[in-house]
């Protein structure tokens, strides 16, 4: 039954596994091609059965809203084809906590991006379908709206592109997009919510992605003690140790952390959005166990390079590094203090880090000051709350 309902949709949306996404260097162009193909398929199909719906817009239709950036953060970038609307955000929030988007209805996005743990899961590697584990640590979704790339290897260029990947990934939610869409279609309340957000038409994986991305753009956290000190003029917001830690963080001859975890003039993302090999994921014999960014670019300097994560709320998002190999902030600082792990593609900057024992303690203190205010409406919507708290 599900198959019959989605037969033509599947031709248009195709199964987009993370690998398929990764190989599509310009996902946006794929979508455009699909729009061209669609009328043809629709025309052929309608000649046969007369049931095929016409092509539809996947642009949200509601009144455009603005998500205010908190102290320390710039305006939130919003793609032109997926403006923020109250209806889109509300739907995305529901989808983010929706377990029907997984095989067996057991996992949602929130299973690994748990609001209680600042949208991480506290595990080294996340547990997916039937207890399967991946090889990388679940990054926080908080402030992901600012990142030019998503995933540790940057294989998605936008939140929209990212959103559908884990749903179909066999070690994550393990459910084809066709089945996910048909499950949502079977629920009248979802049909209504999608029409309210996007206008008349079918539920598509494209609409699912856009709604989830709209919700994720509301997951913004700033106004931390650091922000109040740095951008708010409150010189009492940081302890003396944290102030020393900030100086070491920025000092090129000491921590030089800000070289990649950037602090700007008017705001701080704490990431350059780029990819670096800092020697994490080198095994005891000196071999890289995960090629990281290289698997996308096939460029040698990208071997073992991973996206610089933001450090906002870092005290809440242990364990650390792309492989979750470091348990505490102290471990992370010690890792850098020792110069990481040597390998042929190590970013030379990691060799120049010089930290005394006092510097290391101060840096940990500073990192604790990056815990910001969290948005109020980030948890599961009321109707799924009991289900989530099981």
């Amino acid at each position, binding site marked *: 039954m599900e198959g019959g309902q989605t037969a033509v949709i599947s031709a248009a949306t195709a199964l987009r596994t993370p690998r398929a996404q990764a190989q599509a260097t310009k996902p946006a162009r794929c979508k455009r091609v699909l729009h061209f193909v669609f009328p043809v398929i629709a025309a052929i199909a309608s000649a046969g059965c007369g049931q095929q719906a016409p092509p539809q817009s996947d642009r949200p239709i509601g009144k455009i809203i603005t998500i205010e950036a908190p102290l320390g953060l710039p305006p939130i970038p919003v793609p032109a084809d997926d403006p923020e609307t109250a209806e889109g955000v509300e739907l995305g929030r529901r989808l983010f906590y929706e377990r029907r988007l997984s095989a067996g209805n057991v996992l949602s996005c929130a299973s690994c991006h748990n609001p209680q743990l600042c949208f991480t899961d506290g595990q080294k590697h996340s547990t997916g379908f039937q207890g399967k584990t991946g090889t990388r640590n679940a990054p926080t979704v908080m402030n992901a709206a600012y990142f030019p790339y998503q995933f540790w290897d940057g294989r998605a260029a936008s939140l929209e592109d990212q959103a559908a990947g884990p749903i179909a990934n066999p070690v994550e939610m393990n459910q084809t997009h066709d089945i996910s869409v048909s499950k949502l279609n079977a629920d009248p309340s979802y049909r209504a919510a999608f029409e309210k957000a996007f206008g008349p038409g079918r539920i598509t994986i494209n609409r699912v992605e856009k709604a989830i991305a709209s919700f994720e753009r509301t997951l913004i956290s700033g106004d931390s003690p650091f922000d109040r000190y740095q951008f708010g003029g409150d010189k009492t917001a940081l302890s003396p140790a944290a102030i020393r830690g900030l100086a070491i963080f920025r000092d090129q001859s000491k921590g030089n952390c800000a070289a990649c975890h950037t602090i700007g003039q008017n705001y701080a993302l704490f990431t350059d959005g780029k990819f670096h090999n800092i*020697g994490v994921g*080198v095994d*005891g*014999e*000196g071999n890289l166990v995960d090629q990281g960014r290289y698997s996308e670019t096939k460029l040698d300097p990208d071997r073992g390079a991973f996206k610089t994560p933001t450090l906002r709320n870092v005290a809440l998002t242990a364990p650390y590094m792309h492989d979750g190999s*470091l*348990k505490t902030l102290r*471990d992370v600082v*010690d*890792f850098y*203090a*020792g*110069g*990481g*792990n*040597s390998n042929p593609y190590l970013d030379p900057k990691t060799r120049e880090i010089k930290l*005394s*024992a*006092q510097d290391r303690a101060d840096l940990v203190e500073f990192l604790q000051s990056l815990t910001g205010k969290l948005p109020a409406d980030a948890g599961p919507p009321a109707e799924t709350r009991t289900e989530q708290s099981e």
Partner: protein
Amino acid sequence: MKLHTVFFPICCVVFGSCSTPAHKEAKSDAAPAPVYFKIDPATAGTLAGVVRFKGAKPHPKPVDMTSDPACVDAHHGKPHDESLVVDAKGDLANVFIYVKSGLEGRKFETPSDPVTIDQQGCWFEPRIAGIQVGQTLKVVNSDPVTHNIHPMAEVNRAWNHSQGAGDPPISRKFLKPEIMIPVKCNIHSWMHAYIGVLDHPYFAVSGNDGKFRISNLPPGDYVVEAWQEKLGTQQQKITIPPSGAVETAFTFKGE
């Protein structure tokens, strides 16, 4: 030192395996199996001896670990500099003694047992280690803190590796002979060790009593070198007669 007792059995193990060389028949499409030198147990000899120190008895300086309180707790006792360890009788420990020449052209099997360096109490144990080319160096972290071991090799490739508390051992190999590779911890500046890499099994480290012993040595003429991290090197010409047990002594002079 513990090493003395550790090295002797290793030498025996190495020797045991060397005395039964593998006679694999090389097929035309496979690389020929290496032909290892066959040691004749009936004629092999022993070089034993003692290393002494002459001069004013050194007073090792205390090592300050207070910058990392976890190290102070882990060390159990007051650490002192061990770059020159002399006992009451003037015996000199931690001297690396090895056959420098006389074994040319002979290929010795690589032991399958690893050589282990432990990081314990923010200290390398042992301080002086010998290893064969291609043999596994196993680095263990028994401490509650992160270490970053850094063998500063010049002939071999230098490397460093972070090892947190509870992390699994690191396994590495050195591919060329090198005397000696200084080893440091990138995090704890007081931690020092040295690794001697050789393409044969004829080396030893003097114990706390200054004694050393190199067994299963084929009869022949050798140059034997003793290396001490602060006092440099000394060489002796040694002849091992068939089944001979040769005794010798090295004396290093201090200030």
